[in-house]
């Protein structure tokens, strides 16, 4: 069933989006307690990339003693490859024992760097971006938020997801949001099931795109990345998904400065929208928006087949 939520402060206003998104997703916990994911968009420094990656799954950490050695080895290998490609790592931060956050400077071909790092066994890049930071793990919103210290994260917009696993496994790999690899700052969360997943996946794989999981939602991120790569605007790419993707879906996309939503032609999955002069909030259920705005607000449900995009 899954719960999705998104928020954006307009006109360059920044806020504690880490806490706001945590509250929104906690209110949607009943829609999916398996895993929680955040895509938070901060201010970012000029020329500095933020890299979020993990070198093991949470369950793996509990099951083998050898994994702790592997984690150290894998992290060292990532460091070596970053240095080899000429990336200058400014800051290293351990979010957990198996997930890390790096700030680095790099002028070369980013896709090559990312491919080179991901080529390592067991290493998965969650996100690379100037503004985007993607965090996902097992547990509810508060658990993940506390584990990764997200409260107090200042930024302009965010999307988030609470997952009820229906089509694939309960692990970090299948958790949302998905980063639109290898595009800076593009991420997607989705609620629904896609029925032409394999047909479209094979088509995209033939075009050279990589899929990390067997989760159908990843397809939306990859498809949008592909369309943007071929020159589409975000809104145009989203409009296309309504026609070509089969199944039921409501999804949110965020880029460095935009937030978008799209709903399938049947309007089968819920989405409540609140829009004021300075803020836009979207969620599967109104309770999520109310968790940050307890006062009475006017909300409505966007219709089937609708695509909307807002800028920060």
């Amino acid at each position, binding site marked *: 069933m899954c719960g999705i939520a998104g928020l954006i402060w307009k006109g360059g206003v920044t806020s504690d989006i880490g806490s706001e998104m945590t509250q929104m997703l906690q209110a949607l916990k009943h829609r999916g307690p398996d895993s929680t994911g955040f895509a938070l968009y901060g201010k970012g420094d000029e020329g500095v990339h933020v890299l979020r990656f993990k070198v093991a799954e949470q369950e793996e950490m509990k099951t083998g003693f050898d994994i702790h050695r592997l984690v150290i080895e894998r992290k060292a290998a990532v460091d070596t490859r970053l240095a080899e490609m000429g990336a200058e790592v400014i800051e290293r931060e351990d979010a957990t024992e198996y997930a890390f956050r790096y700030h680095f400077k790099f002028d070369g071909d980013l896709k090559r760097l990312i491919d080179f790092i991901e080529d390592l066994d067991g290493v998965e890049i969650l996100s690379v971006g100037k503004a985007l930071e993607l965090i996902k793990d097992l547990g509810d919103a508060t658990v993940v938020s506390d584990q990764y210290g997200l409260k107090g994260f200042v930024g302009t917009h965010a999307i988030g997801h609470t997952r009820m696993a229906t089509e694939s496994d309960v692990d970090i790999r299948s958790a949302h949001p998905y980063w639109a690899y290898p595009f800076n700052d593009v991420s997607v969360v989705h609620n629904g099931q896609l029925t032409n997943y394999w047909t479209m996946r094979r088509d995209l794989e033939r075009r050279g795109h990589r899929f990390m999981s067997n989760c159908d939602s990843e397809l939306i991120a990859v498809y949008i990345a592909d369309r943007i790569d071929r020159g589409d605007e975000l809104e145009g790419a989203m409009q296309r998904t309504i026609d070509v993707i089969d199944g039921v879906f409501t999804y949110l996309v965020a880029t460095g400065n935009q937030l978008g939503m799209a709903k399938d032609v*049947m*309007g089968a999955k819920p989405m409540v929208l609140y829009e004021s002069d300075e803020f836009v909030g979207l969620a599967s259920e109104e*309770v999520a928006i109310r968790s940050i705005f307890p006062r*009475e607000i006017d909300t409505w449900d966007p219709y089937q087949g609708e695509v909307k995009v807002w800028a920060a």
Partner: protein
Amino acid sequence: MGSVTTSHDMGLHEEQLAGRTQQMFFSATEEENFTYPWAYEVDFEKAAEFDAADMEIADINIAIRDLMKSGHGTITVKNPRAKHSLGVGILNRLNLNFEGSLGYFGCGLIDGPNIHISGRVGWSCAENMMAGKVVIEKNAGSLFGAAIRGGDLVCKGQAGARVGIDQKGGTIIVGDSVGAFTGFMMQRGRMIILGDAGDNLGDSMYDGTIYVGGRIASLGVDCVETEMTDLDKRYLEGKLSQYGMSAPNGIDSMIKLTSGKQLWNYDNLEPTEKKLVL
């Protein structure tokens, strides 16, 4: 409900789907409509209110029941804050006011109460309502009034997709537009939409009537436009004025839609009756 707006008295009911147990008509003035043995004796003059801001869903519904038990006939719930499943399963006469918005499944499975909601409602509001009146001042989500069997369900704003899906009676009024598949598999009753309607309006409807005041994106399978009679106009005028609403372009410009009955491939007999005949 005055006699002018009682559609049955006006001779509007001509549905042919007359299975044995299906035709039930409700009038708020008739005492025998409140015949549940467990119904509480309530006094409309006796009013109570409480703040639901920090309460759990079950506790709010229990609080409403407790107040009915103690004879309160008018209950006001403050700050419902879009919580789900509030005001469900009330089989009693009662004036219930929500000062705020409800989440999913609000006021479902009710029989008898008169409910007013000052905010909006989420998905599946008043699902399977048997009788009573629900008035919503703002917007409604999808599946508004799914499978209702009687009573009046009024949304003064816009409603989502699949409004009145499987409607089996009663009246649904929406002040603004509705989404796709509105009136899907409608079987009886009336739906009044003052704004625009989405794709596949009245798809596969068996019977019943849909009135639309705005533009229609597309009609569903076997949903056809029918001539508006003076009786229809009188009914619409009476029904809308009852809730202080009016058609944006006047009642004369409204369109009446019914089933084309091209998909009717069955008879009126219940399975048990069929055995007797054959």
